[in-house]
Structures are given as C-alpha cells and as structure tokens.
C-alpha cells in the first residue's frame, strides 16, 4: 500500500511502518501534545511553508490567569503582528496605512491539535516514529494516518521533554507534503504547575462535547447540508459581511476538531448569474456552485473527497 511504502521511504531509521498504537495510547499521545502549548511558555522563530510560499514568524507564548496569550510577528513580507488571546486574534498590519483585522480564531502553530485531541484517535491511526532533531532539540516523530479519505495526514515531531510540536507537516495520502511548520529556534520555559482554570484538561471520557456555537448563530438558512464526513459537525454558524458591502454572507464551519471546512451561502449576484467551479491548491480545496437562489462556496483544508461530499449534499431549504 502506498502509505506503507511512504513510511519505509522516509528512511528515518526506526521509522518503519510500525503498527498503529492502540487507540487509548494514541489518544493519550494526542492529548499530551494538545495540552503542551497550554502548559509551557515559549518563544522562538518558525517557518511556515505552503505551496510555493514561505513565511518566517517570530512567536512568543505566555500563560496568564485567563489562559494563554501569544504574539506573532511576521519577519518577512508585509509588516504584520498578530496577538492571540482565547478565542480570537487581532492582526496589526503595518505599512503606509496600518490597520487592524480581527479574526475569530486564535490557533496557530505549534498549538494545532484541538483541546480534546484524544478523540482524534477515532479518525486517525497514530504511529510512533524515531527520534529526530529540530531547532537543536530532540523530538519524537509521530504519524497521524487518516482512516478514511476525508482528512489529510499529519507528521508531527514533538519535543521529548515538553511534547510541544517542533515540526508539523500536512501530507496527502501518498505522503507528499502539502504544508509544513517548523521551528528554526525555540526556547521553552519550565512547565507551569497546572493548566489555568480557563483551559481545563479534558479527559477522554468528556472530550466528545462539541464546542458551543457562538451567539450570532443562524437559525434559518437558504440551504441545508444533508451529509457530513464522519466525525464532522457544524461548529460555527455566523453571518458576516464579506466581499460586498451591505450583504451578509452566511458562514458555517464543519470540523472534526482538526480539519475545517467552511460553507458560504449568499444570494445570487445582482444579475442572477451563478458560477460553478472548482479549485485545488495545496491542502485547500474549493467548490462553488448555485443551489436554489443562492451561490454557495465550500472551502476546506481537506481532501477533495470531503469537500465534494459536503458540496454534493447541499440542498435548497424547503420554503
């Protein structure tokens, strides 16, 4: 099988196509990794690569009573600084006309796994690889192989002491990298006594709760989604202005915790012309088409199968 061949081809010494970890061990590993970024303050520089783009960012993460706060500064390209607090982030974009951009998300490398990462073991086989070196630190390599065609694979290399990911690679089903993050330098502070009350540790048993929906939840919509890939649920539903002033677009997000797929629903263009199209670029797949009187756009950091499944199951709501 291609996957096994890839693992052998990786040539990481001990990184043979080992048997996947038993589910409880896999869950425990994922949970430890997810919690690491809430337990350690750190600062460093990482490189992000997606397609033919590369970006260098300086990151510092500190822990406070309200949770973690981090700050990222782009070191190349346009001046950009992002401050992340729980639940949202604010970007300060520099240049001749600096401006603020507020975003609803605050997750960033190395904090990639959801708080209840243990449940991801249901959708991925986790295999331990060898010990590698990233940013001068020894790290344990792990591979997350999706059990179905609806998710990309992940290769993580986590710091041996803190379990903080030092490197994360998103790979397709043949093991080719789609996107990667890697620390170039990193200093990790001592672990804090415990995770703050605001970010309680989730045990596997209680980890299945779906994140709460935000207050501006949509109660009605022009479309219905009849089928989601296994493990996915709707985690966000908001109305927001997007490209056109004065017109709010419905934005839904479906997620299994690690993979996110957005659905945008808006009225057809003023001249009633609809567009049908598809696109893939690296890890991102996009589909757009007309459903009823709406133009819908599906965008996901997910394989074509997942995006297509959702796209093909969208129907106009019965009025």
């Amino acid at each position, binding site marked *: 099988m291609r996957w096994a061949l890839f693992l052998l081809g990786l040539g990481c010494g001990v990184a043979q196509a080992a048997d996947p970890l038993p589910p409880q061990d896999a869950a425990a590993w994922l949970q430890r990794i997810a919690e690491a970024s809430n337990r350690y303050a750190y600062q460093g520089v990482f490189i992000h690569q997606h*397609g033919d783009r590369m970006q260098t960012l300086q990151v510092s993460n500190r822990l406070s009573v309200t949770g973690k706060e981090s700050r990222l500064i782009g070191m190349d390209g346009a001046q950009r600084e992002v401050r992340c607090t729980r639940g949202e982030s604010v970007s300060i974009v520099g240049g001749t006309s600096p401006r603020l951009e507020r975003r609803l998300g605050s997750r960033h490398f190395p904090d990639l796994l959801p708080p209840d990462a243990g449940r991801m073991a249901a959708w991925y086989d986790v295999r331990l690889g060898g010990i590698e070196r990233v940013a001068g630190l020894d790290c344990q390599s792990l591979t997350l192989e999706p059990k179905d065609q609806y998710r990309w694979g992940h290769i993580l290399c986590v710091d041996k002491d803190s379990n903080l990911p030092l490197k994360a690679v998103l790979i397709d089903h043949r093991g080719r990298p789609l996107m990667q993050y890697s620390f170039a330098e990193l200093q990790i502070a001592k672990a804090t006594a415990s995770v703050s009350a605001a970010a309680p540790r989730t045990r596997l048993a209680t980890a299945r709760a779906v994140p709460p929906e935000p207050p501006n939840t949509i109660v009605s919509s022009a479309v219905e989604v009849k089928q989601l890939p296994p493990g996915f649920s709707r985690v966000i539903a908001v109305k927001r202005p997007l490209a056109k002033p004065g017109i709010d677009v419905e934005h839904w997000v479906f997620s299994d915790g690690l993979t996110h797929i957005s659905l945008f629903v808006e009225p057809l263009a003023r001249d009633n012309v609809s567009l049908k199209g598809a696109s*893939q670029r690296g890890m991102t797949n996009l589909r757009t088409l007309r459903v009823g009187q709406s133009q819908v756009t599906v965008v996901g950091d997910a394989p074509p199968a997942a995006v297509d499944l959702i796209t093909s199951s969208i129907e106009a709501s019965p009025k």
Partner: protein
Amino acid sequence: MSEQDIDRQLVERARNGDKRAFDLLVQKYHRRLMRLLSRMVRNQEEVEDIAQETFIKAYRALPQFRGDAAFYTWLYRIGVNTARNYLSSRKRQMPTISDQAMNDDDDVDERIVAQDINTPESMLLSKQVAMAVNEAVEALPEELRTAITLREMEGLSYEEIAEMMVCPIGTVRSRIFRAREAIAAKLRPILGTTGDTRW
C-alpha cells in the same frame, strides 16, 4: 425602459455605426467582466488583456447579437470562452491544473500554477476607491443613503423604493441621482479625472 432594453438600444446604435454607443456599454460592464475573469485568471494584466479581447470580439460579433438575451449575458459568454481559450493555450506553455488532474488527486504538486502578482498600483487605487466610496456613503444624509442602498444593494425599482420610503418616485429619482453625484465627487480627486479615460 428596462436596463436590458437600454443596453439593446445602445447595441442598436453601435450596429448603426456609432462606436461611442458601444463605448458606453464597455464603461458600464468592464469591471463586472473583469471580476468574472479574475475568478479564472490570477494576473491582473492578463485579466485586462482578456477583457479587452472580449470586448473587441463582442464588437466584431455585434451583427450576431440577436437581442433575445441580455447584452451582459452574451458578453459574459464571450468572456468565459476567451478566458478558456487563453488558459488552454497557456496550459501548453507551462504546467497548470488540467481538468483531468482535478479529478485525480494524485498530482497535487504538479498543480501549482506559477505565481502571478497583481499590479500594486492598480490594487492600491482600487482600495482607495473602495474606501472613498464607503466613506462617501457613510457621509450621505440618511434619505440619500437609504435610497442608494435600496437601489444598488437590494436592486429595488424606484417604485418599490418610493413605497418603502413613502415619497414620490420623482423624489426617489432625485435622491439616487444626488447620492451618486455626492459619491462620484469624492472619487474624482482620487482618479484625477472627471470620469474620463482613467476608468
């Protein structure tokens, strides 16, 4: 007379040899066409080239315009075909995403199309225009803002707007006109024109 009929009248004039009538249609539709094209082609210069080719093709094809379809629908169709031809000719020159490859997710790496960058100058200008328009709308007296919004964003007819705002149609017409004048006045310094060749 509906918008579609006005367009048809302009086409008719163009077919009678008045190129300026066709110019008016280009003024009206070139941005919408370019927006459509920019969904298919990344580079702004290429978008402009294809838009220009589309309009010239449309002009040559005016005798075939039957007038039963809307002008813009007809124009868009020519635009999409022009862009398709362009993309397929480019595909032979550089690796790009073929329709076949879209269905076969084995070749992700090869699908990355060469990067193109939008002309910063034109992007800056369009941002300035967008900002100026928004600011101008914000600054409008409420009755003008409501009238232009209902017209432009909601596509309501003057009659519907008159009903909603409880005023005569003549007043609606005047408010929309004054709103447009006020917004256009804010744009002219940016474009450095009185609405001539810059746009």
